[in-house]
């Protein structure tokens, strides 16, 4: 007789096996234990269904709704960016002169908008400073792998916003037309030229006019265009309208021009190469 590793008797070992085998025989021959298996199956199915409906489904639904909402948000952002890009393109198409960089350069083919436009997105814009103070700057990031050099024109779907200052490959600063340190040469429709400085107030620039130089009449809502002098901005692009005429002295008036383009209208801009 073989020696067993523990003290349990052979009788127990064999009797348990016989007991189990008899269960197997009864179930195989007569389906004796089918009610037990049916009860176990129905209970396990009930627990599965109950736990799925009451515990897992709500958790899964809430988790998937978070993921879905995130996806929808990302998709919305992409669509918004694409829409803004298209709006900028539309603006260029309807203002073809903007791609003709200035009076010193030749005309650029309007069909090649993508080759002259670098889409860019706002990285940082201190809105408080924009509303309170003189310094109106935006930091942007080009959306495509292309260098943005200094002295390039920044536009959005409403018009010219400012010009660029290169920082590095992935980042550049834009000085807005309304920044007090910015100057843009402009002209009216009667070919009166002046240099408009930023007023340090959102969407406002101004020209100080010496009335002794020539008899010019100005009125509110009079349109001003870029003159193309200075070599940065294109010629003939509408900049804004006179919102206020201030008399500084008997010989001098200040024209305050409200700009067409609002930098707060979107986070998406275009840089003209």
């Amino acid at each position, binding site marked *: 007789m073989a020696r*067993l590793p523990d003290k349990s008797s052979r009788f127990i*070992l064999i009797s348990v096996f016989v007991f*189990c*085998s*008899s269960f*197997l025989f009864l179930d195989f021959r007569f389906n004796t234990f089918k009610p037990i298996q049916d009860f176990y199956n129905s209970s396990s199915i009930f627990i599965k269904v109950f736990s799925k409906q009451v515990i897992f489904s709500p958790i899964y639904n809430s988790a998937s709704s978070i993921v879905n909402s995130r996806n929808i948000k990302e998709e919305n952002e992409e669509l918004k960016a694409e829409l803004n890009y298209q709006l900028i393109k539309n603006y260029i198409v309807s203002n073809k002169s903007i791609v003709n960089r200035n009076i010193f350069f030749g005309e650029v083919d309007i069909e090649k908008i993508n080759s002259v436009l670098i889409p860019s997105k706002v990285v940082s814009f201190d809105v408080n400073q924009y509303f309170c103070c003189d310094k109106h700057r935006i930091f942007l990031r080009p959306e495509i792998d292309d260098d943005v050099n200094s002295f390039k024109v920044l536009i959005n779907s409403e018009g010219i916003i400012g010009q660029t200052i290169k920082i590095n490959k992935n980042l550049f600063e834009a000085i807005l037309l309304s920044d007090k340190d910015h100057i843009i040469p402009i002209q009216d429709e009667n070919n009166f030229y002046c240099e408009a400085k930023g007023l340090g107030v959102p969407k406002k620039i101004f020209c100080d006019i010496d009335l002794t130089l020539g008899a010019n009449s100005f009125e509110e809502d009079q349109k001003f265009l870029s003159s193309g002098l200075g070599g940065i901005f294109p010629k003939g692009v509408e900049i804004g309208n006179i919102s206020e005429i201030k008399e500084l002295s008997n010989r001098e008036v200040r024209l305050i021009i409200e700009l067409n383009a609002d930098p707060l209208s979107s986070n998406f801009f275009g840089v003209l190469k």
Partner: protein
Amino acid sequence: MKLSEFAYLTIIFIVFSTIDLKVNAFLFDYLIISNFTYLFLCYLSFRNPQKINSFFGAYIGFMIDLHQNIFFGLHASLFTLTILIINYNYFRLRMFSALQITIAFSFFVGFFVGFKSILLATMNFQYLVVFLSFFFAFISYLLIPSIGKFLIQKTNI
């Protein structure tokens, strides 16, 4: 055996049984039946025959029969028979090398698969299934001791 260890081992065996069911769904086309549950029982029974006795084998067998919804007592009978054989030949098996143990347990699996196939798929019994399952069990048992050690490292089994 403590009640917590008992519950823990029950859960492990049910998990192994579920894994077997899932793996078999993939291996069915290759005429292989995986038996991680059975090999794990063999491993435990050989490691600690005092605690993994025939009562435990019967209990786990009945649980798996319920879980797999097959003849009540099939696994219980085969598990108790396996434990009985391991107990009867414990000291012989102790002298075996790891490779010999693996081959021995693979033979057990061959018998287990064959017996199950005769009862559960009488009309479609194939010797090739037994033969291939033997080889699959041989490969599987190379992993079972490591997995078993990891799973029961915090118990006194």
